[in-house]
């Protein structure tokens, strides 16, 4: 059986950052991803990132991805692509399929950085071609350079909905409206301002009633919601659209952590059931770590910092760092991570993450 010291599942921002840190410490690292290319969602982020210099703020997301990839190459990280991990078994043995063949990989440490998947929304007409996740539309335009439609209705005003609306216009589409069921816009005002001055109307307290079309999306009926989130009769409006993009949140991809036997806790602001972990990102199973959106949905910058934490901590546990060196590195990362979780948009996540860490202490 193939062996490695640290096996990382998922080559997105968290997994790549983890690989870089662990390999820099000297560990033998194997990074597995089910996709044909590494990077997760990072290579479709064509906008400039927020944060500070340490978070590479002002740099477009895909360039951060290119830098991480270069570092993994220089550090000799083994990257297995088109490799879908489908199970974690005893003695930290991973099972994966690559090129139609079944393989096993035995690791001393495992880091699960599987990410998250887009939530769907049910309404009459939601199965018509042209209704898709906003992330899917973003992949089409920024990775495959295919425009999903010319007239888009965006559902959801979190940063994903706002940013993808902007990028759809950059790709040449029109966004006929962005609707949000809550009474307020969820994402950053500066992202909303970009699409407003480009002429996109934003309707809060509004939801989708139905999508009309023979073979594909042709029209969308939207309706206002009252304070109790109930449709207000008589407020229906019909918009011409050929595409409906859903940006209604993400859910952590936790299957492998469940299967391995990690203990979970339920924290709705993080996306629901999330694996319990400690300050080292180690789960309730010794030697199995988590990082990125699987631990609770945030954004790429936090995912990269969590990946670095898991990388340093797993390398330390294998003896590649003494306690003092590792502590200094981890303290720096925690400072950067905490600074991303401040302010009106970060505070909720900060508190939720504390609950997650407390759940670990209660078990101990």
């Amino acid at each position, binding site marked *: 059986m193939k062996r490695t010291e640290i096996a990382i599942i998922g080559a997105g921002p968290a997994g790549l950052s983890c690989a870089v840190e662990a390999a820099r410490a000297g560990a033998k690292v194997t990074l597995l991803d089910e996709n044909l290319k590494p990077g997760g969602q990072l290579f479709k982020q064509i906008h400039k990132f*927020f944060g500070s210099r340490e978070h590479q703020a002002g740099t477009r997301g895909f360039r951060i991805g290119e830098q991480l990839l270069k570092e993994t190459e220089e550090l000799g990280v083994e990257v297995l692509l088109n490799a879908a991990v489908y199970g974690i078994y005893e003695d930290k043995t991973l099972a994966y399929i690559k090129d139609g063949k079944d393989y096993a990989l035995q690791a001393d440490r495992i880091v699960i950085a599987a990410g998250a998947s887009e939530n769907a929304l049910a309404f009459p007409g939601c199965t018509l071609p042209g209704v898709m996740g906003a992330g899917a539309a973003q992949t089409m335009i920024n990775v495959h350079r295919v425009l999903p439609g010319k007239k888009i209705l965006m559902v959801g005003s979190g940063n994903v909905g706002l940013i993808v609306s902007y990028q759809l216009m950059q790709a040449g589409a029109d966004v006929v409206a962005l609707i949000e069921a809550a009474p307020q816009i969820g994402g950053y005002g500066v992202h909303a301002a970009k699409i*407003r001055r480009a*002429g996109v109307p934003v309707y809060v307290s509004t939801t989708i009633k139905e999508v009309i079309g023979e073979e594909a999306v042709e029209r969308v009926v939207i309706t206002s919601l009252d304070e109790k989130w109930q449709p207000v009769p008589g407020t229906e409006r019909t918009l011409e659209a050929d595409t409906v993009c859903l940006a209604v949140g993400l859910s952590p991809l936790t299957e492998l952590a469940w299967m391995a036997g990690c203990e979970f806790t339920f924290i709705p602001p993080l996306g629901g059931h999330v694996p319990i972990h400690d300050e080292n990102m180690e789960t309730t199973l010794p030697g199995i770590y988590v990082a990125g959106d699987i631990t609770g949905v945030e954004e790429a910058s936090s995912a990269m910092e969590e990946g670095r934490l898991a990388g340093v901590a797993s390398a330390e546990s294998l003896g590649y760092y003494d306690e003092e060196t590792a502590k200094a590195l981890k303290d720096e990362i925690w400072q950067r991570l905490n600074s991303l979780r401040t302010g009106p948009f970060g505070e909720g996540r900060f508190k939720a993450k504390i609950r997650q860490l407390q759940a670990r202490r209660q078990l101990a």
Partner: protein
Amino acid sequence: MMEKKGVLYQGFPSMEELEKSPGVPSKDRIRKGPVACIECVQEIPCNPCEEACPYGAIKVGKPITNLPVLDQDKCIGCGNCIAACPGLAIFVVNGAREKAQISFPYEYHPLPKRGDTVDCVDRSGKVVTSGRVLRVVKAPNYDHTAVITVEVDQAYIDVVRSIKRLEGSDDE
């Protein structure tokens, strides 16, 4: 339906929110010459503007969620901050001449050309006046964010923040 005002409801800051913002210069200062107008009214973790300013006129400090504070006497309106802001929320306005000049970030194709007459839009995307393009700057360190300067009537100095997107493609 009455639309509630403000960034949380409309998606762009209201005049009241802008007046309270420490990144927005005074009317007197705007009349004296070019100056940055930082329309960043929410405490988000972000500070590239601080580092982009060669004159030390923008301060975020710690915590990183502080709103950027503009020192309007230090700012000369060079516009280095415009393309550095990931939120595309910084503008440079100049009220010192007969016509008002407004510089803004722009990331769509095609780009307008110097001398073009363009439809100028307010923060809600509504076309409010026409203007003339004075400059289109595409510096390498702007990383594909163009900075466009338009000239409009003085009455629109606080109103115009972009142009209507153009049809077609760049003929380069």
